[in-house]
């Protein structure tokens, strides 16, 4: 069985608009009108992710780090 994990990425298509709103599991958010671009940003986590409020599983928040 695929047990749920804490590493959940979410993209909402904002009703009445063409805008997509992405939220990373670290709390970082971004809007875009292109799902390819939004997934690229999302999955680059933690690179370029600056959560407004650090989430509980990432108590130190996010620094920009080079991708390995």
């Amino acid at each position, binding site marked *: 069985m695929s047990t*749920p994990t804490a590493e959940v990425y979410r993209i*909402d298509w904002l009703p009445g608009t063409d805008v997509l709103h992405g939220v990373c599991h670290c709390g970082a958010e971004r809007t875009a009108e292109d*799902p390819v671009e939004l997934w690229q940003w999302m999955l680059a986590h933690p690179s370029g992710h600056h959560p407004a409020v650090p989430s509980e599983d990432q108590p130190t928040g996010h620094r920009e780090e080079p991708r390995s």
Partner: protein
Amino acid sequence: MTAFAKNQWYVAAYGREIGRELLGRTFLDEPIAFYRAESDDQVIALADRCVHRRYPLTAGRLDGDTVVCGYHGFTYDTGGTCVFVPGQKRVPRTARVRSYPVVERDSLVWVWIGDPALADPGAVPRAPWLADPRWTTVGGMEPIDADYGLLVDNLLDLSHETYLHGGYIGTPEVAETPITTEVDEGAGVVRVSRHMDDAECPPFYARSTGIEGRITRWQDIEYHAPCLYLLHSRIAPVGVGPEPDGSDPNAFHVEITYAITPSTDRQVYDFWAVSRDFAQDDEEVSTFLHDLNRTVVLQDVAALNVLQKALDTEREGYQELSINIDTGGLAARRILARLAAEGEKTAPVVASP
């Protein structure tokens, strides 16, 4: 093409399809022979090629728990070990065919493709309604001559219902309603939700539920990559929601289950099942839902066959354009690529000198 993800469980068949006749299917380019052992009814899966001259075992016959090759009589036990060769007493030590781990659960037969040592029966994703007496299920399987990735794309973006399946399950609201997409990276699950508050009722639901007029229609997809796709469908008259305690007695629930099992790089098995929690004993509803859903599946089959033919004429590196409706499909593609890469890594490798 979409790379195969090894070291994964795949739906091989419905339990009812496997009995005392040999059944041959190819998964991820591996031809496999299935049958039930006479002694304990367990499903057995063996490589469908005799070790002697590669004759398909499915062209042979069963003898008790064993399979007898139809060419020279090499005989294999349920573990794939050769127990008889013609004309001599000594059976060569290397005379064995590969046996595959199998799990039968929720009326489905799952087979593990990859390193047998890594097969964990607890990792098989569940579809419990398929074998639950409170639900009535109809289903089938259609092969599609296409890369399995095309079927994943198709099922993760239901806005195509409006165009390809209009008049069956599609209505204008499906394509018009924004979706929410979630990826649980660790679990390898993609969820796509589309909740339509006030929608036209397509014939699929109007005739099965008897609802006249407009509906609230929820589509909640859960894709357990790579194989199992669940569509939790909730239908109710407009404005009728679940009770405060979470129960939902005034809605109709349909669990639509798909299993996407790659066969070759140009063929995929499209297993489909429709389970309902209403009119359970109504044969007419069963026949209607079966025939209508099969029609819908065959519309997908025809479309994907056409699409694959068109893609085969494209030059390498052709361009696509993705828009908002593709948010879930893009997520699924990426998870599949990751699973495929992981499956390669853990496959036994020969040490380089």
